[in-house]
């Protein structure tokens, strides 16, 4: 009797397991199903909006470290190359660093950036204890007098060092910018040149076709845009490539002419859900504070560049403030930056002297493609956001001296208040570089005994 009852329990257990496996398996294979149940933990701020696209990182069902690494590099590799990553993988594959790799395997992104572990995730998505620099640089205090006695937690504190991007922090760069004023004599952003390049390439734009059908307001808006002046007609967007007319356009319609901007958008927090075949990002999905009424707004090109005006000035500030409601954003209209922006919009100040949200967060990038040099608006704000020293070169230095920028970005309260006062703290990077340069000069002049070996 007992054996029969046990057998029935086994059958029941097997059936229950199979049923559960069936339900879960179906949900796993159905890309439209809610896969939240499979998340082993909440994801980082960088990835949470694509957390249900498991395949974005787990590109193979049973892929291990190398497969994950490939996924990381698929999205972040180009940026690491662009910023001259200070710690590329190749630095750690050298066998001479095998002892270091045994202590900290910096060959793989996930060594420092573990996903699904939000409870141990710190700034920049780092999941290691804060003393990881010591693994390789424990003797820096002995090698550099300026670094003697500095705590392990000061390496990456504002304005000193970053693990990846140090383009605005290396010693000779600091020295090159010694003594710069808070504000440059002519503070001004680089001018965008998409329009001028277009006009050069298309000296005789097609004539505007009169009598366009469609709502008068749409035609009026379009007639007032650079699109109309450049001869971009309705069909060029709504029936591009001789396809049937469509009213429902998305970023693909814009990419025909604005490929670089669309690429950036699709890599950004605003657009990164789209390449994963997820519905568009909405403020409701964001973790940052957002305006309540904006919650259901789906993000695409026209959510900032409203059709058919495509007003870049609206897109540069008011569009941002229509959604973002964090304290930094809310304080913008009380800032000097906003004052400059309104003066430019009113025609009371020269072009490119105002500073909108986009002026900092979607910076004007100078790019040399080999065929041409151009200035375009970077649409992937992730590339310039954190650590915020990444903004120094493409943003701050257009208007401010390096020393001021380092201090300002390190003052978190100042950032929060949108720079409504002078920095309250001072970063010593430039001072240290100066002290070392002076010590070198004195050594060469024979004022200090040389420590040279032979």
């Amino acid at each position: 009797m007992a054996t029969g009852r046990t057998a029935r329990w086994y059958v029941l257990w097997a059936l229950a397991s199979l049923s559960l496996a069936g339900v879960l398996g179906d949900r796993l294979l159905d890309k439209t199903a809610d896969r939240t149940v499979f998340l082993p933990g909440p994801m980082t701020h960088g990835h949470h909006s694509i957390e249900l696209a498991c395949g974005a990182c787990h590109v193979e069902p049973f892929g291990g470290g190398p497969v994950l690494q490939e996924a990381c590099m698929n999205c972040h590799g180009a940026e690491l190359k662009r910023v001259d990553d200070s710690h590329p993988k190749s630095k750690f594959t050298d066998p001479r660093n095998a002892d270091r790799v045994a202590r900290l395997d910096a060959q793989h992104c996930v060594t420092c950036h573990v996903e699904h572990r939000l409870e141990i995730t710190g700034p920049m998505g780092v999941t290691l204890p804060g003393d990881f620099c010591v693994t390789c640089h424990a003797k820096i205090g002995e090698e550099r007098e300026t670094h003697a006695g500095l705590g392990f937690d000061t390496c990456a504190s504002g304005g000193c060092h970053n693990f990846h991007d140090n383009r605005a922090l290396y010693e000779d760069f600091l020295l090159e910018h010694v003594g710069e004023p808070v504000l440059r004599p002519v503070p001004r952003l680089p001018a965008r040149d998409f329009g001028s390049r277009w006009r050069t390439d298309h000296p005789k734009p097609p004539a505007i076709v009169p009598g366009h059908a469609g709502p008068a307001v749409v035609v009026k808006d379009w007639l007032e845009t650079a699109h109309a002046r450049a001869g971009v007609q309705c069909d060029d967007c709504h029936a591009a490539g001789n396809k049937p007319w469509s009213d429902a356009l998305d970023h693909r319609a814009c990419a025909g002419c604005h490929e670089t901007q669309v690429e950036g958008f699709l890599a950004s927090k605003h657009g990164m859900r789209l390449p994963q075949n997820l519905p568009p990002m909405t403020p409701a999905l964001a973790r940052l504070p957002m305006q309540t009424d904006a919650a259901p707004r789906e993000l695409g090109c026209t959510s900032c560049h409203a059709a058919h005006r495509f007003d870049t000035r609206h897109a540069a500030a008011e569009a941002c403030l229509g959604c973002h409601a964090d304290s930094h954003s809310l304080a913008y209209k009380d800032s000097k930056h906003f004052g400059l922006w309104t003066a430019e919009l009113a025609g009371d100040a020269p072009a490119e002297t105002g500073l909108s949200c986009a002026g900092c967060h979607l910076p004007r990038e100078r790019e040399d493609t080999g065929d041409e040099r151009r200035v375009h608006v970077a649409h992937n704000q992730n590339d310039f956001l954190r650590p915020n020293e990444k903004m120094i070169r493409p943003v701050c230095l257009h208007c401010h001296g390096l020393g001021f920028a380092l201090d300002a970005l390190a003052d978190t309260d100042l950032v929060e208040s949108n720079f409504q006062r002078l920095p309250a703290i001072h970063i010593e990077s430039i001072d240290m570089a100066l002290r070392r340069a002076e010590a070198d000069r004195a050594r060469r002049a024979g004022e200090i005994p040389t420590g040279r070996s032979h």
Partner: protein
Amino acid sequence: MIHPQSHPAVFAVLLLGTLGLSACGKEQAAAPAGPGEAKTLSAKTMADSLYAVMASDRTVYTRLIVNRLQNEEKIIKASEHWKDEKALPLPAQMFRFGAEMVAEKNAPFSYSLQSLWPVNRQNAPKTEAEKTGLQYVVDNKGQNYYAEETLGEKKYFTAVYADMAVAPACVTCHNGHKDSPKTDFQLGDVMGGVVIRIPI
């Protein structure tokens, strides 16, 4: 021994190295491959051949590009911060970039430029073989150093070759750099060494 079939990339590089040797002729020669070595190569032969290519390219870049354009014709300077300053990469950087690219390709060998007087302290010798080898090539001019060592539970054939100051640009740059522990290099001095590692 290195088998061409199991290490095609290395073998290809080695063939190129052999061609390079034939073309240059003046660089320190690697051991010539005899008839019996057509299918298998010793780690030493492979290292010597790789070095022949590296040394030739390095010398060509230093003399024909950097020294000519910077010091002789004064057209463009070479700078550690070549990208910011629209300048030529330094010869040591050129060498390192090549080593990094090789590493990215997962080639079954690695190489680096090191010195007893490094501008960047990370390029000081770390392992016993590196320390001994770099001192050896300084003390025994014209000779190479070979050893076997175990790193990270893997065994390597390690070769160290002297890196000489082949052009005035080498000397002036190192002597003038504030991070250089040695400021009296002269043309022809051994300034460091190329370390090549091959897993065995």
